[in-house]
């Protein structure tokens, strides 16, 4: 039987219509961006650098969240589960077994990928989609939170303190306070996360993931194994968010159940991505650059409110209120997020 393959192709290998410069362009932008950001530790004072590091942690989480929820179309409201696994794997292995955080990061990422795959499999197996899927992921994260609070080996509600060393140590990922390495490491992780995102989006599996997101039935009819593609996307997403959690523990020398698995953590992964633009490469980063400083500013206001806001002193939860307001504004006026909207405007 003759098939279409045996027909000599009529398209030249260098047909200009085949050119896709978008990946190359994204890699170039990433290179420039990382180079520019890398000098920040020399310019920022210690206080501002703390904000910058927090922003990077937000960005890594959001880039991870975006893989599954933005490109995969599976809205996770439970990414705290994977941030927490990363944070706790690091703390537990380091404190109890003296394992290097570099190794713990990888172990945590693998556990998160496995946990995320299992959770997603169960949700998808029982055909949970849209808000039901989101609620199910939220429920799983809450279960993890409760579990951690009740497991002796994980110090229940007390969490873990990372012992502070007297000398710098690459193996233990510790340097004197204010060392630029505390900025460069999350920057490196973010760069790898974005690099992976760009590669993924242009890969066969990434194209499949977006096809499945757009129309699952059509994707399956073209021979795509919908479940497999979804689970691969979820695994990558959870692994990256987990690494952010591991670094969190190393940076703050502490993790407790709420810092790891609290629902506020899930919100922190969602908000930058939605504000910046879900399903875009740069959206989560753009969003984090807004949310990171904003969260610091809110914390300042609550600590020492200016006169007319004195009633806010000592209140907590203002950040969540501000995020909620921001989200509503974005969803109403810029459903594609700030980056997504600007990009579309410049294209047309």
């Amino acid at each position, binding site marked *: *039987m*003759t*098939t*279409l*393959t045996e*027909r000599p*192709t*009529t*398209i030249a*290998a260098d*047909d200009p*219509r*085949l050119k*896709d410069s978008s990946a190359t362009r994204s890699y170039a932008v990433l290179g420039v961006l990382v180079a520019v950001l890398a000098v920040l530790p020399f310019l920022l004072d210690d206080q501002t650098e703390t904000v910058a590091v927090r922003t990077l942690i937000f960005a890594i989480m959001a880039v991870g969240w975006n893989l599954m929820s933005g490109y995969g179309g599976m809205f996770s409201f439970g990414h705290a589960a994977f941030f927490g696994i990363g944070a706790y794997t690091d703390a537990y292995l380091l404190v109890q077994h003296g394992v290097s955080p570099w190794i713990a990061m990888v172990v945590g990422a693998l556990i998160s990928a496995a946990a995320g795959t299992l959770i997603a499999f169960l949700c998808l197996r029982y055909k949970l989609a849209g808000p039901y899927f989101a609620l199910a992921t939220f429920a799983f994260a809450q279960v993890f939170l409760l579990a951690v609070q009740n497991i002796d080996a994980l110090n229940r509600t007390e969490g873990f303190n990372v012992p502070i060393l007297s000398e710098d140590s690459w193996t233990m990922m510790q340097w004197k306070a204010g060392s630029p390495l505390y900025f460069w490491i999350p920057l490196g992780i973010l760069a790898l996360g974005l690099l992976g995102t760009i590669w993924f989006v*242009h*890969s*066969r599996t990434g*194209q*499949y993931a*977006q*096809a499945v*997101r*757009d*129309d699952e*039935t*059509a*994707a*399956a*009819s*073209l*021979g*795509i*194994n*919908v479940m497999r593609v979804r689970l691969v996307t979820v695994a990558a997403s959870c692994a990256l968010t987990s690494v952010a959690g591991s670094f969190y523990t190393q940076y703050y020398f502490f993790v407790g159940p709420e810092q790891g698995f609290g629902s506020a953590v899930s919100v922190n992964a969602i908000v930058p991505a939605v504000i910046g633009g879900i*399903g875009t490469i740069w959206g989560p980063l753009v969003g984090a650059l807004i949310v990171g400083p904003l969260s610091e500013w809110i914390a300042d206001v609550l600590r020492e409110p200016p006169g007319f806001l004195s009633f806010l002193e000592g209140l907590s939860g203002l950040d969540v209120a501000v995020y909620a307001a921001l989200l509503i504004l974005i969803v109403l006026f810029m459903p594609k997020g700030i980056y997504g909207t600007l990009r579309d405007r410049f294209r047309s």
Partner: protein
Amino acid sequence: MTLLQVDQLTKSFSGLRAVSDVDVTVTDGEFLGIIGPNGAGKTTLFSLLAGQLPPTSGRVVFDGQDITGWPADKVAGAGLVRTFQLMRPFESMSVLENVAVAAHHRHRSRRAARRHALEVIERVRLAEYVHAPSGSLPTAGLKRLELARALALEPRLLLLDEVLAGLVPAERAPIIELLREIHADGVTVMFVEHIMAAVMALSERLLVMAEGQELALGDPQEVIRDPRVVEAYLGEDYA
């Protein structure tokens, strides 16, 4: 050689028998036209064959394998590919990307998939839209996109569900020519269509469905003279 064998295939939707005890055998290389009034069960039959719907009862054997109840992706992988009457583009993607997703089935590399996709796009005469967002295509364009994606999989058996609908006559001719060419390349085709001129020009055999059942099956010229077919579908004028 028999490529597809359908035995007593039935689909009930809470009482309504959309497809009822259909028996068809399709020979390798054949072009089988399928006609029937609206709601006859033509699209449902395709969904049963291609795995979008599980049959209530009956059996489907494709290329010697019992594929009854297989998931859609596995059926497509085996070489049985359908298009959708209600078009289902991947709306966030351009036309080229849409077809490349399908071409990836045979081509792992991005370059090769895009190249093959572009070739198919030219064949279905969508070249002017190659980089257009698929959501922005007019109906005629979306129909051709459906056809292009299916062709990019290089199927053995192609189920076409009203790919000519919405095309003005001038747009139909090249697609009919293309279908003839695809058929000549050895692809077996099942062709659901309301446009009788195209059905008669292409079909080697004709299946008429009505109310889920097989009303007539055989030589197109004979089938369209069958009084029951005239009554159920064509109306006196055509005969």
